[in-house]
């Protein structure tokens, strides 16, 4: 009976994992502390600032191992269990080390039928990495994600939880990877509304770094 306790179906987290960061690295600068204090002021209790602080910690450390979560908990005077609970609930908080570039390819239904899986398979082949894993060189993590809210410009993906890349084709993916390799940051793409195109002759944001249209999706070879 007790066998499932010794051999659980789901692997339990190691209670004392090897820390990824030394004591010295584990601290927030004065500037970061001021930002955290600013967030805490926006909520009746410090609990509300957990999500912002975890975002800050992830930006700083790259991912959120237990020692970073402990640092966040200490900074906000919250129980570690609560911070751990929050960090493990949301998919955008990385619990383990990811590649330099995290590619989130949307494959939810609009993207599914507009070639999301083609793009995913193309990336798997090109980067020699399976979805959900990090490439051997440690540069790319490829993830299959749920709807990112850009269904009209499918297939699309998000890079490093930041900019969106719309209307993807294999050629466009190649260009995008080249830009990433060259250390360029991806532009913010403003998608022109079809009605704007008719009534205003193009995109309404003259300050947009890059402009694209909603494009009829290519025929998808595979849907899963």
């Amino acid at each position, binding site marked *: 009976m007790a066998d499932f306790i010794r051999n659980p179906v789901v692997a339990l987290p190691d209670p004392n994992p090897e820390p990824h960061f030394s004591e010295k690295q584990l601290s927030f600068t004065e500037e970061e502390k001021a930002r955290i204090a600013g967030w805490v002021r926006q909520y009746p209790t410090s609990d509300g600032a957990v999500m912002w602080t975890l975002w800050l910690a992830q930006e700083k450390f790259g991912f959120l191992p237990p020692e970073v979560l402990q640092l966040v908990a200490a900074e906000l005077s919250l129980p570690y269990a609560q911070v751990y609970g929050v960090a493990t609930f949301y998919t955008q908080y990385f619990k383990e080390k990811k590649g330099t570039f995290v590619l989130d390819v949307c494959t939810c239904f609009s993207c599914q*039928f507009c070639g999301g899986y083609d793009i995913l398979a193309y990336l798997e082949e090109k980067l020699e990495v399976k979805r959900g894993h990090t490439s051997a060189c440690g540069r790319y993590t490829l993830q299959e994600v749920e709807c990112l809210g850009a*269904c*009209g410009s499918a297939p699309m993906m998000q890079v490093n939880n930041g900019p969106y890349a719309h209307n993807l084709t294999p050629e466009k993916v190649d260009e995008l990877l080249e830009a990433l390799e060259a250390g360029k940051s991806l532009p913010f793409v403003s998608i022109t509304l079809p009605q704007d195109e008719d009534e205003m002759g193009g995109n309404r944001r003259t300050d947009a770094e890059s402009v694209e249209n909603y494009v009829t999706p290519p025929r998808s070879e595979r849907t899963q």
Partner: protein
Amino acid sequence: MTKAGNWKSYERVLLPPVKNLHHLDVYRAGGGYETLHKVVKELEPQEVTAEMKRSGLRGRGGAGFPTGLKWSFMPPVKPEVPRYLCCNADESEPGTFKDRQLMEYNPHLLFEGILIACYAMSLKACYLYVRGEYASWITHMEDELEKVYDAKLAGKNMLGTNHSMDIILHKGAGAYICGEETSLMESLEGKRAYPRIKPPFPAQSGIWGYPTTINNVETLACAPLILDRGADWFAAIGAEKNPGPLLYGISGHVNRPGVYEYPTGMLITDLLEIAGGMRGNKKLKAVVPGGASVPVLRADMIEGVTMDVDSLREAGSMLGTAGMLFLDEDTDMVAFLRRVAHFYHHESCGQCTPCREGTGWMENLITRIDDGEGNLRDLDLLLDLCDQMEGRTVCALADAAAWPVRNTIKRFREDFERQCRPAVWAVNA
């Protein structure tokens, strides 16, 4: 004449054709924030709520609850009890991308709507909960919000009055369930986003136990328009019982996908025509009229159906978020349902057993059918599973997962049966 009236000459109001409308000065040059001025200086809070009620605006987040009524649920003001507004910008429903475009192109309309709502319900603060994936849009809105504060349109003693209202941006981190209102509140409080049991409703006990109202982005963006042009003007647009402008997010196999603004009550067939018809002149097979959780409609079911709450209910679906997905004749509906089931399995928060386990088994069963290893009885098992999930959980995610499964099987049964093993094995074949 359809319910949408003379939609061909419809002039957009949520996303009017003005260049750089997202800049504060451009927005103000077009009369922006004047409605807020008028409301705060001339109207009593109850009058604002009454006007909203009269307009007949129904929430645009999916449930379609009358907004004015929701606002009037807030208990009487007590000085020692804080009260809050939450703006739900956690747009994660597959097929929905209208709020993102609204935040990109007309964020000040949203801010003005938030401030009007704050005034109408005598609130001090609004939490604008944006999903974490919209990081770029959060940065843009932070910049614009700073300008709003600098212009004294929000914050302490806004507009030189003794009112103080704050808009606070909150960044989510990727969880579909946070779009559910009680779960959004848990998330704001810095907890795992497990939905709460209702009652108590948010108006009685919301964030941190204080009275709270939660509205969708598009709903709040309608408020300045109603107060500016009057409830009668608003009520005259589109379908009678569900009036107003509506952002249709059209995706899938169409020639011109994108976000379109038209009155409510548009014929689905008209919308398909506006979106350029089906790609490659293929035939239409199915329409999902309002995001992943609404029942899918077969092509032969959309004749005469308009995009408003009543018409879609009669047709056997729901308006949801008006994020429409058009699928052509080559679409494999089993693969479609498999992906939808995968979505709900992934996004189930795990609080209630029927949902946590049910969505998993749903995905397993549909995957088996899709792989060609399913039996005909699996279809009935799936329908039985839907019965076991619907209405047995804290929030509506289990229902939202069950509806598409039930209706896709019901409406495309031949597609599923073709993929299953035959029921009777021929003897001596």
